[in-house]
C-alpha cells in the first residue's frame, strides 16, 4: 500500500490529524490497533469535552462521534485491528500486523498519535502482596462503561486527578461504595469543578497529604493502609489508617506511548513524550506527533487542535515544504511541563505549559513577552498564544513563570 500520510492512532489527536491532512488534499491512512476508532474518548462517558472546540459541553463518545462522522464522508482509509510492528525510517515504510496479514505501507509522512498509558500499580513500589482488585482508573472505566462489568463492591481511590475524581462519581452512581480519595499533595489534583461534582456532591472524603503504604489481601484485596505524608512526601509513622476495601483504583499518572520510536526520535526528558516543534514535527523530519504522546493534556480540545496542526504540516511536508530555523524552547523558572520544544516562525507559537507548583499570581515570560496570570495550578494546562514579535530573532526562547 502507498500513501502520503499515515496517522498512527485513531483517538482524538489522530482523528484531528487525519482530517486536517485530508483537507490539504493528500492521501491519508489512519491506523488503529483496537476494533473501533475513538480511542479513550469511547469510554469517557462523562461531560467536559468540546467546550473550546465545539463551544458546547459534550461527553467523550459524542465528541468522538462528531469526528468519526466527518471521517466517514472522506476517502480516508481506516485500518482498525492493525498493530504497528515497526517503522523502517530509511525507506519510510511501516509494517502492520493485522488479521488479514502483515501490511506494508509506503508513506511520505507519519503522524504519531499514540496517546498515553496509565502508570501501573507495580511501578509505585507499594509494599504488600499482589492481590486482585487493584485497577488503574482507565481499566475500571473500560470495564464499567464498555464491558458492563463492575470492578468490586467497596473501593478506595488513589490519586485525585480528574480521572480519579470522575471514577469516584461513576462508581458511586453504580452502587460501589467509595470510601475515600487519597491524594499525596496538599491540594486536589483535578479541576475544582470535579472536586465539587464528584466528591462533595456524594460526600466522598478527600484525604490530602496522604498515600497508600501497604495493600493486604489473600487472593483478593481486603485492606489498604494509608499514611499521612510530611512536607518531603515521606510517610509519618503512627499516622496509618486502615481501609477495608476490596477495590483500589489508581489514578497516579499517564505515560506517553513512545516506545516504538524511542531510538529514532528525540524524547523530552521531563514529559517522556515525543519532542516536537510548534508544527508538530519531531526530530525526524517526516515524523510528526500530537496529543498525549507528546505531553499529557487536560482538555481534549487542545489535543484536537494540535492533532489538526500536525496533520496539516505533515501534508505540507508531503507537498515539498521544508521547515527550517528551529529555535529551541527551554523551561525556565517554575515551569514543570512545556510543549512544544521548538519554534519555527512558519506558524504561531502556541505554548502549553504546567507550572511546577500552585501560584496565586504568576508573571509569564516568553522571549520579550510578559503577561500575568491568576490561580495557576499544576493540574491545569495553560495555553498561551505568543505573537511572533515577542520571539523573533532569539536563538533560544526561555519560558518562565515568576511568582508575582
Amino acid at each position: 500500500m502507498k500513501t502520503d500520510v499515515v496517522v498512527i492512532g485513531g483517538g482524538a489527536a489522530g482523528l484531528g490529524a487525519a482530517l486536517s491532512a485530508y483537507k490539504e488534499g493528500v492521501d491519508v491512512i489512519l491506523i488503529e490497533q483496537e476494533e473501533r476508532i475513538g480511542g479513550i474518548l469511547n469510554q469517557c462517558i462523562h461531560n467536559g469535552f468540546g467546550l473550546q472546540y465545539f463551544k458546547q459541553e459534550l461527553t467523550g463518545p459524542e465528541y468522538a462521534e462528531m469526528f468519526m462522522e466527518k471521517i466517514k464522508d472522506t476517502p480516508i482509509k481506516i485500518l482498525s485491528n492493525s498493530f504497528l510492528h515497526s517503522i523502517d525510517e530509511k525507506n519510510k515504510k511501516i509494517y502492520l500486523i493485522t488479521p488479514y496479514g502483515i501490511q506494508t505501507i509506503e508513506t511520505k509522512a507519519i503522524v504519531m498519535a499514540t496517546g498515553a498509558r496509565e502508570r501501573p500499580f507495580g511501578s509505585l513500589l507499594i509494599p504488600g502482596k499482589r492481590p486482585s482488585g487493584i485497577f488503574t482508573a482507565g481499566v475500571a472505566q473500560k470495564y464499567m462503561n464498555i464491558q458492563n462489568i463492575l470492578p468490586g463492591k467497596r473501593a478506595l481511590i488513589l490519586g485525585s486527578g480528574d480521572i480519579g475524581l470522575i471514577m469516584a462519581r461513576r462508581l458511586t452512581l453504580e452502587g460501589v461504595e467509595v470510601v475515600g480519595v487519597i491524594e499525596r499533595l496538599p491540594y486536589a489534583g483535578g479541576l475544582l469543578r470535579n472536586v465539587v461534582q464528584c466528591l462533595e456532591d456524594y460526600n466522598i472524603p478527600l484525604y490530602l497529604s496522604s498515600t497508600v503504604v501497604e495493600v493486604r489481601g489473600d487472593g483478593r484485596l481486603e485492606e489498604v493502609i494509608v499514611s499521612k505524608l510530611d512536607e518531603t512526601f515521606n510517610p509519618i509513622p503512627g499516622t496509618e489508617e486502615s481501609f477495608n476495601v476490596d477495590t483500589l483504583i489508581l489514578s497516579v499518572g499517564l505515560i506517553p506511548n513512545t516506545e516504538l520510536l524511542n531510538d529514532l526520535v528525540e524524547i523530552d526528558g521531563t514529559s517522556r513524550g515525543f519532542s516536537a516543534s510548534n508544527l508538530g514535527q519531531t526530530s525526524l523530519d517526516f515524523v510528526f506527533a500530537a496529543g498525549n504522546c507528546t505531553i499529557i493534556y487536560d482538555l481534549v480540545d487542545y489535543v484536537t487542535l494540535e492533532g489538526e496542526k500536525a496533520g496539516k504540516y505533515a501534508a505540507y511536508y508531503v507537498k515539498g515544504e521544508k521547515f527550517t530555523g528551529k529555535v529551541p524552547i527551554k523551561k525556565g523558572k517554575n515551569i514543570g511541563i512545556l510543549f512544544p520544544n521548538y519554534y519555527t516562525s512558519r506558524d504561531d507559537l502556541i505554548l502549553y505549559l504546567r507550572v511546577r507548583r500552585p501560584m496565586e499570581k504568576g508573571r509569564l515570560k516568553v522571549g520579550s513577552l510578559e503577561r500575568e496570570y491568576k490561580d495557576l495550578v499544576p493540574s491545569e494546562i495553560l495555553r498561551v498564544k505568543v505573537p511572533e514579535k515577542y520571539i523573533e530573532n532569539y536563538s533560544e526562547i526561555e519560558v518562565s513563570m515568576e511568582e508575582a
Partner: protein
Amino acid sequence: MKVVIIGGGISGTFIARELSKYDLDITLIEKNLDIAWGTTKANSGILHAGYDDFPDTLRAKLCAKGNALHFKLSEELDYDVKRTGSLVVAFDEAGLKTLEELLKRGKKNNVPGLEILKGEEIFEKEPHLNREVKYALWAPTGGIIESWGAAIAAVENAIANGLKLILGEKVIDFERKNGRISKVITDKNTYEVDLVINAAGLYGDEIAKIAGAEFIPIYPRRGEYILLDKKIGGIVNSVIFPTPTEKSKGILVLPTIDGGILLGPTAEDLSEDQKENTATSSYGLKRIIEETKRLVPSLDISYAIKTFAGIRAENPNKDFFIKESEKIPNFINVIGIRSPGLTAAPAIATYVVEEIIQDRLKINLEKKKTFISKRERIKRYSELPLEEWNEEIKKDPLSGKIICYCNMVTEREILEAIRRGARSLDGVKFRTRASFGRCQGNFCGPRILEILARELNKDLSEITAGSEKAWILNGRVRP
C-alpha cells in the same frame, strides 16, 4: 507401577518428565490451580554456574550437572535458557579473598571457564558497573532461565507421554499397608500408589511428617524483587552478584529472559507459619534500591514496572534433602530444594530416577518405546520473520490479532494457552507473557478476560486472576 508425585514445581515437573520416559502410571498432584505456582513462579530465574556450594554437598554435585543438562533439555522441551555469564564483584582485598575461595570451590565442582578479572576487563564486559569494583569472578556458564516456562514445558511433555496432572487438590493423608504407603489421600480424591515422591516444596516437611517419613524442617525465606522495564534492558548483560556473605548470595542485578532487568532478592527468614507471606515490605524494597545502586549506580528506578516476593524453602542442613525414606520404603523425599534448585532440577530428576529409584531402591524401570522426547512451546509469532508471520496469518487470522500490545502477543497464542491448561489470567500470562510488559495488563487484561470467559463458557466475573479467591470482576453494571 503407580507413581504419585506430590508438588508441581520445578522439581516435581522435571521428575515427572524424566519418569515419563519409562513404562509407569504417573500422577502429579498439585494443590494450587496451576503448576509452578509456588517458589517456581517467584524467584531470580538464575542458572548458577556452580561455584557457590561446598563440594561435598548434593547441591554442588547436581548444580553444574543441571546447568549443562538445561541446555540440552531446553532444546528438546523448547524453554528459554541463556548463558549470559555471571560476575561476582568485589570492592576490596577482603572481597578478593572470597572470590578466590569461590574459584577454588568452583574448580572442585567441575565448573568450567572460571576466572578472576580485574580493572578494565570487568568494565569491558559491563560498562555500567560501579567503577569502584576492583575484582570480579567471571563464570561463563552462568545465566538465566525462565523457571515457570521450564516447569510448564516439562509437564506438557510429561502429559504427552502419559502423565496424569491433578490440579487444585491438596494431599492431606496417606493410607499405609505393611509399612508402605498404599494410598495417597487428597481433599477431593484417593489415589492408589506404589511409589510416592514428595516434591512439595515449602510444604515438603509437612507432607513427610504426615507420611511418617523422616524429614527436615522447612522454614520460609522471603526474597523481594523489583522488575524494571525493557527500556533499561542492556544496562547489564550478565548476572551481577555482589560479594556473597555467609547467609546469602546477596541482592543482584540481572537481565531477564524477556529483556527486562530484575533486582533482588532480599533474604529474610520468616517463621514457619509464614510460608504464604509473599508480601513485599518497604524496608525490603528500600534495601534492594540501595544495594543495587552500589553495583550499578546509573540504575533508574523510575523504570520499575513490578515488585514481587517469592518464598524459598530453607532448611538447617543447608543442602538438598533428596533421600529415600528408611522408615517408609516407598517414599522418596525431594525437599529443601532452594538455590541452586532451579539449575539443578534436571540433574535432580536423573538422580532420583537413576540413583535412588533404580540403583538404591532396586526398582526395575522399563524404557518406553513410544516416548515423545520433543515438546514445542506455544508459537511466538512476534519472533518470526515478518514474511513467515504473514504466511501464518493467511492460514490463521487470529495469529494476526494482537491482544497484548506491549509484548505483541496474538489471540492465537492466548487460545493455545487456554487449550494447554490456562484457566485464569495468570495461567494465560505465564504461558504467553501477555501482561508482563510495561502496561502490566492495563490494555490487554480486559480482553484476555473476555477471551477466557468465551472459551471456558463462563461469565466474565467467574474468571480469576489465579487462585480461587482472586476474583476480578463483580457482576454487571446493568444486569
